């Protein structure tokens, strides 16, 4: 196994709102190894994006606040130390790409200048050198006629090309970790595949670790090594991609997998959907947050939050009373 690059321990991020304290990320722990592609899966509002913004301390404060936990990057806690130290990590060692390529580039600056920005900041390159490297990067991510296109403005690029540019910006300083926050959600399906392929190949070539946030299990299946399933600010199940699809444990994961339309299911079968809707994070009921929607709910689920139970080989673990008490276990 490769060395551990990033270790998140009991991370908690809350937002103080007028409706009370919203626990957006509640006691999350995971590790990321060198070259690993980690998928963070869950519905909208389950805390995926907040988790990743917390990693770089980009949560707007106030109203947000990281209330506990540790984020060890190469052994150093990113949550202690001043703003300046984290600023050098951002874009340098940990880079991010976002969901909407249409607004993720400054409309007034040429593409090349925007890519050169991080290089000048983190690598101390001069303007000329950085611009040359920017053109090189554009070529590497598959922009045809890269030298000429480098001097174009963002509005002259299509959505897929802009997302490529975002990736070029993110990888410009050879980061150890690339955080991709739903990078394909705003793109059409053929472009999605290309972008995922690009991320995958970059991760392979540069032994770059990737944290992929998505709500699309198809994306996860194609690219990730390990998967964390999130629900209401908690990681409810962790598993390698093969284990998760072969044998989902948590009722929520099972529900998610059953909700995928299947071509071999027959046309008369209605598509499954998990009943109910995600809970309000400002007023969570006691016990397991998934209980109201769970078809296997037991008496204890309404009283206590199930602990994280490790099963089989790491990273396999699940937070569910079905497995915690030893009654359930792997069937």
């Amino acid at each position, binding site marked *: 196994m490769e060395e551990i690059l990033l270790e998140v321990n009991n991370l908690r991020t809350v937002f103080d709102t007028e409706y009370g304290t919203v626990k957006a990320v509640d006691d999350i722990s995971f590790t990321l190894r060198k070259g690993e592609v980690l998928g963070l899966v869950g519905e909208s509002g389950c805390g995926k994006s907040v988790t990743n913004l917390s990693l770089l301390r980009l949560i707007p404060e106030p109203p947000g606040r990281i209330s506990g936990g540790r984020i060890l990057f190469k052994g150093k806690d990113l949550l202690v130390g001043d703003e300046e130290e984290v600023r050098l990590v951002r874009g340098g060692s940990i880079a991010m*790409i976002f969901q909407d390529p249409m607004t993720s580039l400054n409309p007034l600056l040429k593409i090349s200048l925007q890519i050169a920005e991080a290089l000048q900041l983190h690598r101390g390159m001069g303007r000329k050198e950085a611009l040359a490297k920017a053109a090189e990067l554009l070529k590497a991510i598959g922009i045809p006629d890269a030298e000429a296109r480098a001097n174009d403005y963002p509005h002259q690029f299509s959505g897929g090309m802009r997302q490529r540019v975002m990736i070029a*910006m993110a990888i410009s300083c050879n980061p150890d970790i690339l955080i991709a926050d739903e990078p394909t959600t705003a793109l059409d399906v053929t472009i999605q595949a290309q972008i995922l392929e690009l991320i995958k190949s970059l991760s392979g070539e540069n032994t770059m670790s990737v944290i992929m946030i998505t709500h699309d299990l198809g994306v996860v299946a194609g690219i990730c090594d390990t998967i964390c399933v999130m629900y209401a600010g908690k990681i409810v199940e962790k598993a390698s991609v093969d284990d998760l699809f072969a044998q989902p444990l948590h009722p929520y994961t099972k529900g998610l997998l059953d909700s995928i339309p299947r071509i071999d299911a027959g046309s008369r079968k209605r598509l499954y959907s998990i009943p109910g809707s995600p809970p309000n994070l400002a007023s969570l009921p006691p016990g397991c947050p998934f209980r109201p929607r769970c078809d296997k709910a037991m008496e204890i689920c309404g009283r206590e939050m199930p602990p994280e139970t490790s099963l089989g080989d790491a990273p396999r673990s699940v937070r569910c009373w079905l497995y915690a008490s030893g009654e359930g276990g792997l069937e």
Partner: protein
Amino acid sequence: MGAARLKKNIIALAGVGIISFYLLIILVSLFWLPFDPVAMDTLHLLEPPSIKTGHLFGTDEFGRDILSRIMQGCSVSLIISLGATLLGAVIGTLMGIWAGFLGGKWDHLIMRVADILFSFPSLLLAIFVMGILGEKTYNVIFAIGIVYIPQFARVSRGAILTLKGNEFVKAAFSSGASKTYVLFRHLVPNIMMPLIVQVSLSLSVAILLESALSFLGMGIQPPYPSWGNMLSGARKFMLLAPWTAIYPGLAIVFLVLGFNLLGDGLRDLLDPRLRNVK
């Protein structure tokens, strides 16, 4: 590159042409005027425009040459309009950027102050300021400038808030850019477009406000000419001697047009998305 692009932009070029013409008139008026703009001539009251008498734009109710008065008033009107807009734009924009970028308490404090200023009708506020400061030419600049502050604060704050939600700002922060860098590299250049529109509007409105103030007797004091007090003087004789109102009115119309054309053209030049549009 700017000059070459300017040549292609006919609108901006027309604006520049008009403004340059006014500047030329100011320059000429410093050294030469057809007549003394304040000298009364009781033998030639309200004379229509005529080449024979030399009064090309006619004379007013005191027999003063209207062309000379327009030329002299040109510098006053331009200085007031530029000065007031500059004052309002600089202070208002700084306030708006500050409020929008920092948010929270600062936002509330600054924008409530702007709201208080905004709650007065602009002419009333200008009269109020003139009443406090006294009727001097440069006080007109302050009075109109203060009227503009909340307008610029609102425009720039709104633009900053919209931009802050854009992912390129998040992306800049996530790639390690500092707050100052993001502010000056990504935010400020992007609010220039709405600001330029506001500036060109303000330049025009300042001339009208100055006219209104002068009309009410609180602006430029007679006998010194401004386009505003010329118009207000002409009110009584407009039907009898239309030239007393038409020529100062035209001077205002073309200057305002010039400012607006320039503003429009500049906005197109600064936005790469509009640059190569035919």
